[in-house]
Every structure is written in structure tokens, then in C-alpha cells.
């Protein structure tokens, strides 16, 4: 018999019974459908608890890294604490630093107890109702959450972060979500990271995390914008490429590439798919404009990448 904690309840799960049926027996509603691990409706998260191997069969490596499991396949072997995967939790955070990176992007940093992986996203809440999602550019090892905020004069959250929030002020962040993060275990794999605008933020996080984990395969990072002056973190990335032989930084612009021989001019989708024609065994991360993300996702798959090796985060523009 194992005891499973859910919210403020403690439920006994006798040997041979699934967690799903035990929770249902305790009148706790868990979405479910097939009860045969196929539909993934009953997906839950374990918190600092051992997860029976069978309960994670068929899940992606990204889901396993985040302690997801299927309640219909979970026969608890020891005590666990669990919650529904989509339950949002908000964490207190203190702004510790802010700095404009160029005319279009603001860097902000927060201290918080929230767990995260570099490349996931979180929402920043001005109050209970107004919040916006941003990708996380920093690693847990950095000790802070770093976000790259597109500066919009009429943006509710971006102008509040830039003009009202001061270093030392508090706000709330939602639990980190998303699959765009580095997962150790395939250190020889070539990584191709492509992003438009602040789609660079999660990719910067993934690249640094890979290098911090001694990733040995080549890492190609493509950062795209309209004109050269809209690119940001250029010095940091050139420096990173200078220090790591396997890290390659590529700048892509739509116009004015003649300023600098290091720049590629053209469409990011064309350039990446032309330069990486065989993507077998590669891992691809795509972040930013939804049109670019969808096109490159499909092309990457057709050019040989496994579906589970293409991680995407499309930034829908706020209305």
C-alpha cells in the first residue's frame, strides 16, 4: 500500500490498483479516456517522488524530464505527491535587474523559487488578471530567471516592466512550461536552433545549457531579424562561438546584409533548410514567428529529423 498526496488529500492506493482508479474512488476527477496509455488524457506530474517506469512508457523524453506520467498506468510502489499536469501555480518573484539590449528588446531578471529549464516559458503577472508569456533565456545554474521582452510602447506588460517595475519590486510568475529545453543524454547529436526576434531567448538558454553540459555535437544557432540593428546579444554570441569550437552562431537578416560579411541575407526558412539538408539524428529547436516555426518544422521533418527531435515554440503575438 502506498499513500499518494494530491492537493490537501492523502489517498491510499492498494497494491495492484492504478492511481487513476484510486483517485476516482476518492472522488477526485482526473481527465481520462482510453485507460490504455494511448490518449495521454490522464497525464499528471509527480513532485519529488519516485515514478514507476511503466507509468512513463510512451512519453517523450521532454515529458519524462518534467516528471510527467500517466495515471492509468501508474501502480505506485512507494508514497508519492502528484498534481494535474496543467494546474497552474504562481510563484513570487523579485526583479533583480533590467537593461535595454537594443531599441527593441529589454532584458529583465527575477529571483524566484520556481523550478525551470532554460528555454521553457513562464507568464509574468502585473496583477491577478494581466499577464504575458515570455521564454526563459537563463539556466537554473545562473540563479535567476532572465527574459527578453519585446519593447512595445502600448504593451500592457512590456511597458509596465520597462517603466514601472523597479529593481527590488515583486510580482508573480507562472510555473514554467513547454518542451523547448536541452535534455542531456545525446551529447553527440547535432543541434540546430533557429529563431526570429526574441525567439532567440529560449535558444540562447538551450545553447548555453548544452555547452554547460559538455555537449560534444555541433550546435548551430540562427538568429534572424529584419535589419542588422535589430539583432541582439551579438557580442555575447560571438564571444561564445570564440570559446567553444562546436558552437556556431549565424546571423540572418532580411535586408542590409552588405554592411557585414558575417551576415546572411534572406529568409530564415530557406537558409536553414538549404544549409542543413540531411537532418537525420539532429535535434531541432524552432522559436518565434508562427509562420516560420510551422514551415521549418515540416521541412525539418521531411529532411529526416524524427518528430520527437523537433521542438517548437510559436510566439503568438498578443492581440
Amino acid at each position, binding site marked *: 500500500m502506498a499513500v499518494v498526496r494530491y492537493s490537501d488529500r492523502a489517498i491510499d492506493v492498494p497494491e495492484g490498483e492504478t492511481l487513476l482508479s484510486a483517485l476516482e474512488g476518492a472522488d477526485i476527477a482526473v481527465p481520462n*479516456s*482510453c*485507460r*490504455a*496509455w*494511448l*490518449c*495521454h488524457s490522464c497525464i499528471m506530474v509527480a513532485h519529488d517522488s519516485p515514478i514507476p517506469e511503466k507509468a512513463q*512508457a*510512451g512519453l517523450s523524453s521532454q515529458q519524462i524530464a518534467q516528471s510527467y506520467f500517466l495515471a492509468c498506468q501508474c501502480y505506485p510502489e512507494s508514497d508519492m505527491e502528484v498534481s494535474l499536469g496543467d494546474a497552474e501555480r504562481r510563484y513570487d518573484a523579485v526583479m533583480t535587474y533590467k537593461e535595454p539590449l537594443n531599441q527593441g528588446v529589454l532584458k529583465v531578471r527575477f529571483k524566484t523559487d520556481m523550478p525551470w529549464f532554460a528555454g521553457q516559458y513562464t507568464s509574468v503577472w502585473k496583477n491577478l488578471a494581466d499577464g504575458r508569456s515570455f521564454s526563459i533565456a537563463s539556466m537554473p545554474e545562473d540563479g535567476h530567471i532572465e527574459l527578453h521582452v519585446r519593447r512595445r510602447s502600448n504593451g500592457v506588460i512590456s511597458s509596465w516592466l520597462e517603466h514601472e517595475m523597479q529593481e527590488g519590486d515583486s510580482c508573480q510568475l507562472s510555473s514554467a512550461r513547454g518542451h523547448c529545453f536541452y535534455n542531456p543524454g545525446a551529447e553527440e547529436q547535432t543541434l540546430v536552433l533557429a529563431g526570429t526576434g526574441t525567439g532567440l531567448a529560449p535558444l540562447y538558454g538551450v545553447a548555453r545549457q548544452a555547452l554547460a553540459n559538455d555537449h560534444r555535437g555541433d550546435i548551430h544557432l540562427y538568429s534572424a531579424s529584419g535589419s542588422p540593428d535589430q539583432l541582439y546579444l551579438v557580442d555575447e554570441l560571438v564571444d561564445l562561438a570564440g570559446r567553444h569550437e562546436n558552437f556556431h552562431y549565424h546571423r540572418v537578416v532580411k535586408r542590409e546584409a552588405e554592411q557585414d560579411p558575417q551576415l546572411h541575407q534572406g529568409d530564415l526558412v530557406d537558409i536553414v533548410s538549404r544549409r542543413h539538408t540531411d537532418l537525420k539524428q539532429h535535434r531541432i529547436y524552432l522559436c518565434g514567428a508562427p509562420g516560420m516555426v*510551422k514551415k521549418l*518544422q*515540416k521541412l525539418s*521533418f*521531411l529532411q529526416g529529423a*524524427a*518528430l*520527437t527531435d*523537433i521542438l517548437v515554440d510559436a510566439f503568438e503575438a498578443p492581440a
Partner: protein
Amino acid sequence: MSLYEKLGGDAAVDAAVDIFYRKVLMDDRINQYFDGVDMAGQSQKQKAFLTMVLGGPNSYTGKDMREGHKHLTGLNDTHVDAVIELLGETLKELGVGDEDIGEVAALANSVRDDVLNR
């Protein structure tokens, strides 16, 4: 032993989905129906379908197939034929013999009326 088990279970189906879905997207007879579709969600559905036709654990109900294809205008037998053909090619690439492929094709064929909503 089911073909699902013979091929190697869950991981083998993942590999099969990759091959199959790639063929579908490159086939001009049917790929217009997959334009702009969420790829992760679509692959999950294909996995459920392949698991079913390979005899793996499944909760197949004709209702899902019917609902899932109802909105596709112009869908007819030639499209179902194309899908079954690509399924056969996929299994051949994975080293499955003709006899087994015939059985899988028959199972896939059994959902034809659900897919075509008749």
C-alpha cells in the same frame, strides 16, 4: 504474438509513425488534407491508428475516426487506398513480410466506412 509485439512495441511504432507521416506529407494525392495541421497532435493520432492496425493495445472506436474526418471535403476511396498503400510501404521498409502486411491492410480497410462517413 501480435505484429505490434514482434516489431518491438511502443518504440517501433514511433519509428513507423515517422516513416509513414513523411510519406503522407510527400504524397500529392493526399497531402493537401494535412496542410497546416498541428504536427505533434497529428502524429499522436497516427500513432494510435498504427498501434491499432498492428494489433497493439488500443481503444479504437469508429466514432473518433468518423468525427475526425467528417469535415474533410472531397474525401473518397482513392484517398483511403493511398493511405493503405503508404502504410504497406512503411511496413515493408521495416522488414515486415507480405502476409503480415496483408493482414494489417485488411484491418486498416475495416475503418474505411468510418473514415468516409457512410
